[in-house]
């Protein structure tokens, strides 16, 4: 019997960042495999933190809203 098809959805297991020869390597989440300069990693980390804060701030409102595709943006959610 064939297993049910898994759909693409937001990752729940965090990626792991390490350092190799002065370069920041990010492995995961999912199939992410990227090497970054320190400045690039800093900027990415800051952007991630900002997005996380925004997602947390919006969490209570979206908890009671109908299920949304994860790729729909906030502006569309706020439309009537």
């Amino acid at each position, binding site marked *: 019997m064939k297993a049910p098809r898994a759909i693409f959805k937001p990752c729940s297991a965090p990626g792991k960042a390490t350092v*190799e*020869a002065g370069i920041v*390597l990010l*492995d995961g989440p*999912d*199939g992410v*495999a990227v090497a970054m300069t320190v400045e690039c990693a800093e900027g990415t980390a800051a952007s991630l933190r900002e997005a996380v804060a925004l997602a947390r701030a919006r969490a209570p409102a979206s908890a009671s809203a109908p299920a949304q595709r994860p790729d729909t943006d906030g502006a569309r959610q706020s439309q009537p």
Partner: protein
Amino acid sequence: MICPHQTMLTKNVLQNRSHVLSALERSILEGAIAETRTYAAGEVAVHQGMVVNISLLLVAGFMTRHIDAPDGRRHLVGIHLPGDFVDLHAYALKKLDHDVGALTDVTVAVIPHTALERIQAVHDHLTRQLWFLTLLDAAIHRQWIYRLSGLNALERVAHLLCEMNARLLAIGLSDGNSFSLPMTQVDIGEVCSITNVHVNRVVRQLREMGLCTIKAAQVEIHDLKGLAAAGQFDPHYLYLNEQIAQRVTGRIPETL
């Protein structure tokens, strides 16, 4: 009449695959070869966009299909081994959407498209086997898309090493656990879309995990089952014969 030297040129075509050439078909293919050429490592044999009226069968060495991105980065989108037609699709396309280059010093056999037209007109089964070769290329490309979209850095490299082991075993250039891989860490990175720094770290991890070592372009696999599991490698897309398919995932330990 086929001389013994010429017979050597096609000996690796469809070796140990699910589809094979008969002796007659192999001799017909040998007869279609107009000449052999050599290219030095780094030379481009077929340029993107160039109109071509020949196809090249790789006889010895490693070749690449690659695309040079506008930002200057080279992406290796295919690795070719002896027995592969590196541009059989040019028979229908007449010009390629990528370059074909020599990764090592190589020897190729040149088959004019006029000779392929004669084969197509007269030899139905051989034509289907040649079609199979291009479909095999497509199957490998599909698997490479999966590798890049679904696997992390360690998994990508493990998958690539398993694939190279399988394809080289099929043509007798791997003993099933060790083989020469004339690719730098930059080359491996260009296949796996990761930096050479990332490749270096992954190679160390694979060694520390006891799965394989890569040293001086020589790959030694210590735990084939473990490496296949790490790379989520399933050789079905290579259309190998059953014995080889089982060996390349460590299910049959004996040598070929």
